[in-house]
Structure formats: structure tokens, C-alpha cells
């Protein structure tokens, strides 16, 4: 009986044992997991001799993995920190190579029936640092703002902190959730919630228009506005490698930057880099 089960299992395992000769590991940003996974899926269907392993976890995870030597490529939704570059230099005597692979407009989420449609960068900063706590202060109903954010490992968190909060600390009352999807989900269920995350994730919620200051026009994060720079919070999405890509890795990255690879970017809801 037990023997039979074991035989059956080894059969199943052997079935998955198609020996691959080239493996590329990709780790990092949750924001980019969707896109990285699509790239991997399509590339492997075209190049059956290459395996691309994709793992999420956060930009911090990817960069640590790059520094710890446990991944070939790291996805990051923020540029590498100086301290991280220094660590990489200590370990591998290289500063790493930066590859810009896509662009993203950082969207501000609110629930569908929220009357507020636009905010200035200053208002956003005040909401996230705890200076504004009620919707009526920004032209909404008289209700407490429930603020959602990301875990401090995420690139989105760091980007938001640097570019919206001017590096000030988030208010402790910001609820940190482990993934962008969790933020979207929470905001879609929370009448007075507000959250931030990649534009690609926004489903079943409203996206606010954002303006640089009180006197400028507010823009939604569309491809045009992101490209032209009118939308004030857009960012690059990066891939990092330890050294200049060669061989299989070079082919893969070149393919990502090619028209075909960039088409997927658009399909997923980000904006092409070229």
C-alpha cells in the first residue's frame, strides 16, 4: 500500500523532472511580480531550454537576495539605496547594473463612491503623516480617514515616503498590508479608506487625480500623463544584476526591452519604457 503510494509519487515527481539546462532566478518587487511572471511565462514558451524562476516578496527582498548572492536578477520598484550598493561592493566588488524596464504611475486609491476626486501632493503628505485626519479637511464627508499603506520592505513604500512625504515618517496609524492587492481590497471595502499602489492593480475602486500644488491642474495616471511627466508621482521599475548581463541572461533582458517584451508591459497595465 505505502509502496504503491511512493511509486505513484516518484512517478509524478519524475514527470516534473524535465532537465533544464539554463536557469535564471528573478526575485523582488511585488509590484512587478505580475509583469515578471508574464515575461517568464511567455519567454519560456518561446525558449523551452531556459527556465525563469520568479519570486516576489518585495524590492528589499530582491536586493537582499542580490547582495546575498541568491538571485541572478532582482526586480525593484525603487532605485537601489546607497547602503545597498556599498554592501554589494563589499561582497562582490561590483556596484551592480541598473536596467530600467517599465514605468508606473503610482495611483491613489479610494472607494468607488467617495466624493473626493483629486488631491494635491501636500494634502496627500498631510494625510499620510497624520496632519489631516478627516475627509472634510479635503472636501469630503465628515468622517475619519482610514489610511492604508504597504509594508516597509516594499519599494512602493520607500518611493511614496521619499517623493510624497519628503522622507518624513508615516504616521503610526497607517495600516500596513503585505501586498498591493491587500491595499486595493481593503480600500474597496472601506468607505473612508485611502491607499496607494501601482496603477495596474486598481480594480473596483476609484483612482484620484493628483496635482502638484493647489493652482495646477490635476491629472489621472494615464500613459500620456505619465510619459509627459504631468502626473506628479510616476516612477521607473528596475531590474538589477550583479554584473553586466551575458549569455542567457543578456538574451532574456534584451527580449524584455524589445518591442515584444514591452507589449506585455502595456498589457499588464504599466507603461513601456521605450
Amino acid at each position, binding site marked *: 500500500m505505502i509502496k504503491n503510494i511512493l511509486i505513484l509519487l516518484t512517478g509524478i515527481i519524475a514527470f516534473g523532472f524535465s532537465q533544464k539546462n539554463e536557469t535564471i532566478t528573478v526575485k523582488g518587487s511585488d509590484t512587478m511580480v505580475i509583469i515578471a511572471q508574464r515575461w517568464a511565462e511567455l519567454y519560456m514558451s518561446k525558449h523551452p531550454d531556459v527556465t525563469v524562476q520568479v519570486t516576489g516578496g518585495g524590492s528589499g527582498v530582491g536586493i537582499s537576495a542580490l547582495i*546575498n548572492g541568491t538571485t541572478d536578477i532582482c526586480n525593484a520598484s525603487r532605485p537601489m539605496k546607497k*547602503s545597498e550598493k556599498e554592501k554589494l561592493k563589499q561582497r562582490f566588488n561590483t*556596484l551592480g547594473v541598473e*536596467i530600467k524596464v517599465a514605468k508606473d504611475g503610482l495611483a491613489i486609491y479610494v472607494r468607488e463612491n467617495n466624493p473626493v476626486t483629486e488631491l494635491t501632493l501636500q494634502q496627500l503628505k498631510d494625510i499620510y503623516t497624520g496632519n489631516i485626519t478627516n475627509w472634510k479637511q479635503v472636501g469630503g464627508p465628515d468622517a475619519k480617514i482610514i489610511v492604508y499603506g504597504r*509594508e516597509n520592505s516594499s519599494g512602493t513604500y520607500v518611493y511614496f515616503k521619499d*517623493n510624497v512625504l519628503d522622507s518624513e515618517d508615516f504616521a*503610526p*496609524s497607517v495600516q500596513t498590508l503585505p501586498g498591493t492587492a491587500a491595499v486595493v481590497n481593503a480600500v474597496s471595502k472601506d468607505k473612508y479608506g485611502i491607499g496607494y499602489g501601482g496603477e495596474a492593480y486598481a480594480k473596483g475602486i476609484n483612482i484620484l487625480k493628483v496635482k502638484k500644488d493647489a493652482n495646477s491642474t490635476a491629472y489621472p495616471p494615464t500613459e500620456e500623463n505619465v510619459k509627459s511627466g504631468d502626473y506628479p508621482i510616476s516612477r521607473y521599475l528596475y531590474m538589477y*544584476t550583479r554584473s*553586466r548581463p551575458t549569455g542567457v541572461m543578456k538574451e532574456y533582458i534584451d527580449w524584455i526591452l524589445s518591442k515584444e517584451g514591452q507589449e506585455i508591459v502595456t498589457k499588464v497595465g504599466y507603461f513601456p519604457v521605450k
Partner: protein
Amino acid sequence: MVGGNINLKKRFRFGEFIAEKIIKGVSFISFAVIVLIFIFVFREAAPIFSPTKQTSTTNTELVQETYGEESSAASETVTEQKNKSVESSGSEGDATAKNLLGNEWQPVSENPKYGLLPLIVGSFKVTFIAVLIGAPIAILAALYTSFFAPRKLREFLKPAIEFLSGFPSVVIGFFALVTLASLFQNLFGYQYRLNAFVGGIALSLAAIPIIYSVTEDALSAVPKFMTEASLALGATKWQTALFVVLPAATPGVFAALLLGVGRAFGETMIVLMATGNAALMSIDFFEPIRTMSATIGAEMAEVVFGDTHYNVLFFIGSILFVFTFILNAVAEFYVRNKLQKKFQGTA
């Protein structure tokens, strides 16, 4: 045995001796693991107690080479990326005692704050809610199962409730996240969808089976003659249960509570998914909290191995380990001694 010289002296057999030593050696693994956990979890946490070496930060900009960018791409404008705080990440922060006792948890910041207080408070708060709700229910259910339930029902009840302990915590967390959170928000109309209360309720589902099953065992361990004597003296069934059996089983119930607290305190996935994870310090049960275990679960995969943030997370792990270790030790020694004294010469 028929006649002859029976040699009662044990012959020394080398094979036997070896077998016994090997078996004894293997059984020592459990103890070795406990010691190893102590050593390794503390080892990774230790650097926060030694003064950190200031890494000499050069002020020169470290410019990375880029790949795949033609000059045409450079004409596109993108918001100026500010890299201010980015330059000093959580990796260079000092974790002094003062910093650890602070009440802000901001490990990724210009000057990282590793205040553990909100995390400790969060852990205790959610555990308190879980046990406050779970313990009475579990103990009452144990009383019902061992006293009032018809025999047929009893045989169904015990496995059914213990089946709850087979629920993977991630499933309970998921259930709390998608079902309970909205249900309670509609019911009570509080502000935060994910908060200590929802997390506590979900956590009580993990604590109930343990409290129930240990209490039930303690109740069944009460010698039969005590109940019989009580009933013979004219007490009713419920009086016997409440005033004779329950007091007699008190140490067992106490042990059940300790184990339940330990289980709730150390749980990760449920609190990670259902409490909102904001490091707030308040008494309000309907505000989000961030627990110690959830902090480790959410941040450990992201830190650079060996930096301060990483050490602090291991330090949190040590606190968790020591706390549950003490709980278990107390449950084991105190309760066993009590029970032995109580039923000495009786059982």
C-alpha cells in the same frame, strides 16, 4: 522453569549495548534542538547589544552602470526621484536600549526607530482578546462535553472540536480577512475593518481547541469517587460539576489557559492577515495593531542579512521564544506538582 542451573546473570551483549546507546542518542535530539534554538536565535540577535561599527560612508555618489538605455530614452521626463532617506536606510541605525524601548516602530527611515513597545503591546492585546473570548467558551464546552452531553453526542463532540485544531492557521486567517472582517464591520459599524478585535476573534479559534482539549482531559482526570461522593450527598449534577469537579481540576484548567495564551501569542499567519498591522499603542480594541510575530513574518524576508534591522527581528524572535518557553515551563512544573499533591494517595 524446570531444574538445571538457571543463570540469572545478565550477559553483556555488545549489540544490545550499542542499540540502547544509539536510541538514547537519537532521543537526545529533541533536547539538542531546544538548545540550538536558544543559541542560534540569540546569536543572530546578539549584535544589537554590542556597539555597531560605523561603516565609513563615502560621500561620493556611487554611480551604477546602466544597461539597455539608448540616448533617445533619456529625453523622456520622469518625476525627479528624490533619494534622500534612501541614502540612509534601516541598515545603519543604532539599536540602543533607548531605541528599543521607544514607542515607534519605523525600521526603514532616515533615523530608524526600533521601538518594540507597540509590538509587545499589540501582541498582548490581541492575545488578551483571544483568551478573554476563547477561554470561557472552551471551558464551558469542556464542562458540557464531560458532564451533560449524552454519550452518543459526546463521542461526536470531542473529535469535532479537536478537528478545529487541524485547521491550518492560514485558512483561519483567510476566513477572517474575507468573511469575518466585513461581517463584524457591518455588525458593529466600527471604523477600521482590520483591527485587534477581528484578529483576536480569529485567534481565539486557534486557542479554543487547545484550551478545550486540555481542560477536558483535566476534568476526566478527576477521580470518580469525588463526583460520586458529591452526588451521594445530595448535590445535583450541575452543583457537582461547578463546585466539586471544576475546583479539583483547577490546575489543569490553569495549564490549559497558559497553553492557550502561548498558542495565541506565538501565532503568525492569523494576525498577519487580520489585524491591520499598524504599530499603534492604544487600549482601544477596535484599532489596528501590529504584533511581534507578524512583524517578523512581514519583514524578515526583506532585510539585508546581518544588518541592524535583521538583528532586531531576531531579537523579537528571542523575546517570543523566551516568553512561550516560560509559559510552558510554568504550565508543566507548577501544574504537575499541584496535581500530584492534590490526588496523592487517591488516584
